[in-house]
């Protein structure tokens, strides 16, 4: 009798257990439509691009990658893309950090105005903004006229159609991506930390470099990385402010797709850019783990 009852209880337990297992699988089922949508919209095109870069007349081939890495013109474009992106990121950090710091110190009303000024570019089309820089930086533009009027230079400086112009334009577009996260982090830093530091005998210089700055480094690194990755894919700004003289990956991709249709080379270039971005990202993630430990 007792044995029988035990078995019965066990069976019930099993049945209960089975129901519990059935629960999550039903949930998984509900996720599928969205998952399929994501795969169809994001992953399939990416896989297709990768496939294109690996497919030749006779099926699978690495020839496109070989060509990419053996053609000085392509390598040159990749190098200048990396260089311009790096410089733009650096300039962004050098301008953005003090800007964010300055905004944090303002009274609430002025802080709102300053933040709105930083955000404003987000609301203006990138095309309009970039053309605006031509008005400002051109040979007959605002800056050159001021410099000549002030007697600083005799001949107009050609900011435009060079890496300088492209860097200025990119910094302007990307600045909010750096300033806003930094501003948020700086606002969150407890004022009592810096008060405590100065009460313990640290000069304001020391307070900044040993207490304030280290606390903002993770955000600075993360947002710089974001800016760098965004710079790699820039198209409009180099196209207009570079005037065809500054070739960046985005512009080369455009030529390879629209002018000299060699989609397999465009695909290979895109894949290389993706790998570079991922490599940087993983290096950053590892660095982050290491610094937290």
């Amino acid at each position, binding site marked *: 009798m007792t044995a029988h009852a035990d078995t019965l209880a066990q069976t019930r337990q099993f049945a209960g257990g089975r129901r519990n297992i059935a629960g999550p699988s039903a949930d998984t089922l509900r996720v599928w439509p969205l998952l399929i949508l994501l795969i169809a919209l994001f992953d399939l095109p990416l896989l297709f691009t990768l496939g294109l870069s690996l497919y030749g007349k006779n099926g699978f081939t690495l020839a496109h990658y070989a060509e990419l890495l053996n053609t000085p013109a392509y390598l040159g474009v990749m190098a200048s893309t990396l260089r311009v992106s790096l410089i733009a990121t650096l300039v962004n950090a050098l301008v953005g950090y003090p800007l964010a710091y300055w905004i944090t110190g303002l009274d609430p009303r002025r802080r709102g105005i300053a933040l709105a000024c930083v955000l404003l570019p987000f609301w203006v089309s990138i095309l309009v903004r970039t053309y605006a820089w031509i008005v400002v930086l051109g040979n007959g533009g605002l800056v050159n006229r001021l410099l000549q009027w002030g007697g600083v230079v005799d001949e107009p400086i050609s900011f435009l159609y060079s890496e300088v112009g492209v860097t200025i334009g990119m910094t302007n577009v990307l600045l909010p991506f750096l300033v806003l996260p930094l501003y948020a982090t700086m606002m969150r830093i*407890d004022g*009592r*930390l810096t*008060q*405590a*530091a*100065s*009460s*313990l*005998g*640290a*000069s*304001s210089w*020391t307070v900044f470099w*040993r*207490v304030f700055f*280290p*606390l903002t480094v993770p955000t600075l690194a993360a947002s710089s990385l974001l800016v760098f990755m965004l710079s790699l894919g820039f198209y409009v700004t180099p196209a207009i402010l570079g005037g065809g003289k500054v070739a960046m990956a985005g512009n080369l991709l455009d030529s390879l797709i629209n002018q000299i249709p060699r989609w397999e080379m465009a695909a290979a270039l895109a894949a290389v850019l993706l790998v570079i971005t991922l490599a940087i990202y993983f290096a950053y993630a590892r660095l982050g783990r290491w610094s937290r430990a």
Partner: protein
Amino acid sequence: MSSIRLENLGKSYAGVQAVRGVDLTVADGEFFTILGPSGSGKTTLLTLIAGLAMPTEGRILFGDRDVTHVPTVGRGIGLVFQNYALFPHMTVFDNVAFPLSVRKKKRAEIEDRVQEALSLVRLTGFEKRKPSQMSGGQQQRVALARAIVFRPTILLLDEPLGALDRKLREELQVELKELQRSLRVTTLLVTHDQEEALSLSDRLLVIDKGTVQQIAPPREAYLRPANSFVADFLGISNFVPLDGGKGVVRPERLQVELIGEHGSRGPSVTAPNATGRVREAVYLGQVVRLHVTLDDGGELIAAVSPAGPAALAQSGDAVAVSWQREHVWPLEATRSGAEAARRAAFHK
């Protein structure tokens, strides 16, 4: 070590007077507490002494040195905040070493003094931890070690135990007191917790609405409050008639006797000051608190021993309440008359 002297100190923010006319001398090595409710100006007072804000009037002296316009960094004070304010990106060692390293001390000296400070707060062995890996009590000990490691002449504590739970708070109170006594450092504690103020301080200052209400040793402030605000803020106060005016008597000074069904009282109290009924009896472990509604409509709160017969009183029971005249402290209006004489009598 250093004394602290405040002369007619005042501070107003945008026309609002946060603190006014504070005169105070804290002796060398004294444990002094500034006690007040939130918004009373006690934190303003601390920020002025710490140099985190500048006074709009008056002077601050550390010893003979006028520090009124000296910024925080030059005052040489150890400051401990309620939220600890430990540097989250530094280890315990680096946190405690911070005041020494900014003073460019030698590595060996820093090692020694950090170890000494950590052993004083009983945290030896925690050097490599990050603050986030420690409990609140441990973090507060680190903050304390950091504040004393550079041997400041003055230690300022802003609600240092406020964020801790009761048991831990009581433990740390004892440790803090021992530490202060062994270092002989002039210590200024800011708190809204009257028990903390009473148990730790040599003397305390009660502040309300930006003005000083009383400066006295804990016992005196508790038993002989300067006014009804101080009386109320420092503990439960019973206001009773006295010489045609008003006096205050503490709940533990009241004697309560249960009145029997036939109106018979116990033998000890022959003529009670008042009779009434128990509204609520609150058992608190060490003490039983009886809320008594008097026959004339008044209210008294008595604290009786849980071992005594009055502890058996239940809500609705008739009781007789009595007190001795010398345990009643006259409040301002009453005192103005024969104050001097009464005060002299009281002091005996």
